[in-house]
């Protein structure tokens, strides 16, 4: 496959970036998207050019490190996958592919396609945990019965890998799908219920502080989420927050 790649290049956080066009030949349809970028970078290095910087780690869709807005969609045109699981067979020979970093005020660009997503971590740190005494007499988690439907819903919420595709897809750069998944995975379980009030208030407050937008229920996040995190979680967060606010 021969491709035209339009890639966002930006020297550093303060530089003014821009789109640069590259021609890339010999792309195998069975390559993953990141392997295709590896090939491009190899060519750039051999030519003595600066390679394109992009985030990646596990390359099997579970770590949430890879990102990229590909042809106007986070993680590209395929559904239910991360960029590392996107294959070049989703594209045609001769295609032009536009590759940009995820865009949000709370996700500033560090270099080229890499953005700083520590705002997500600060939301987590604000309350996305349960306080457990780990001094040696920790109770076995299974000794507290959990209803099957609650356990399943909590588990689905917990599959969020925090990649930021929800923010990237949202026209308002809202982080409510992420935050609601992190609120839900705790709020649904008896262990998490204890701190539910404080948690949801603190996490939403941090989310607002980071400068994410507001949810207008377009549903784009749910469609683009590689893990299929449901809008039900946002509704649950809305309920939890309303309850916590009037307490």
């Amino acid at each position, binding site marked *: 496959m021969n491709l035209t790649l339009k890639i966002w290049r930006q020297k550093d956080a303060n530089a003014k970036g821009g789109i640069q066009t590259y021609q890339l030949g010999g792309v195998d349809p069975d390559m993953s998207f990141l392997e295709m970028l590896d090939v491009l970078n190899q060519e750039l290095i051999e030519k003595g050019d600066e390679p394109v910087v992009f985030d990646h780690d596990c390359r099997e869709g579970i770590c949430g490190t890879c990102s990229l807005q590909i042809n*106007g969609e986070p993680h590209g045109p395929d559904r239910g996958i991360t960029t590392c699981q996107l294959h070049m067979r989703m594209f045609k020979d001769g295609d032009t592919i536009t590759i940009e970093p995820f865009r949000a005020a709370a996700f500033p660009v560090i270099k080229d396609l890499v953005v700083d997503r520590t705002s997500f971590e600060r939301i987590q740190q604000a309350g996305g945990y349960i306080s457990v005494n780990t001094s040696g007499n920790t109770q076995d988690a299974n000794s507290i019965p959990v209803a099957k439907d609650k356990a399943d819903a909590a588990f689905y919420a917990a599959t969020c890998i925090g990649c930021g595709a929800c923010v990237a897809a949202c026209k308002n750069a809202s982080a409510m799908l992420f935050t609601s998944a992190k609120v839900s995975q705790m709020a649904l379980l008896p262990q998490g219920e204890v701190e539910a009030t404080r948690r949801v*208030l603190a996490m939403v407050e941090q989310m607002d502080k980071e400068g994410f937008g507001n949810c207008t229920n377009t549903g*784009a996040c749910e469609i683009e989420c590689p893990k299929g995190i449901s*809008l039900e979680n946002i509704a649950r967060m809305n309920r939890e*927050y309303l309850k916590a606010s009037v307490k």
Partner: protein
Amino acid sequence: MAKSALLKSSLAKKYWMAFTGLFLCLFLVGHLAGNLQLLASGAGARDQFNEYALFMTTNPAVRVLSIVTFASILFHVIDGIILTVNNRKARPQGYVSFKPATNSKWSSRNMGILGTVILAFIVIHLINFWGEMKFGGLDNTVYTTASGEEVKDLYTLTVKTFQDPEMGLVWAVIYLVAMIAIAFHLYHGFGSGFQSLGVNHPKYNNFIRKTGVAFAILVPLAFAIIPFYIYFVLEKI
């Protein structure tokens, strides 16, 4: 924290948007029920509508409701503007390529534009009727109530507006355009309101969605029929 949370947080803005929006949906139902009386013909139609108008302008409970309605519209608009400004700020640098049509509906992404069209319509609509009733002269449109009191004849004012040989059809088309905007606004807004208030469960999600679609089609359609009915069908006065 709890107190400021219900006023200032992002979620609070959503609650207010949803709450005022859903209240305005109720208002639409009430307003439509009253307006449908304009489809009546014959000798009693004028009396019936004017007695209804008299009740709506003099009853203290209706007065309270109308103040709440105006406040809701105002709140919905201001909240909407604040949310839009915040949301723009959340993405200062846009995408070169952005394809929202692949993952969301047009109406859900254009609530602000639709809302602006609706607001413009509300102003026009208020000038047409509310302003005339409140501040307009009594020329040729006096209605004598059952108790012998002379009030403005809203029925004649309405029918004459839409039967005007030059402007009648123009008004009807303007009203139709506004109702199309309301239809799209409701198509997203109705279900969105419930979601924002946390009302979401697989048991009744489908019911809310279907009710929302039916509401978004039927209510604006019924409103839009009235001006055309008056222009084309109702006997000329």
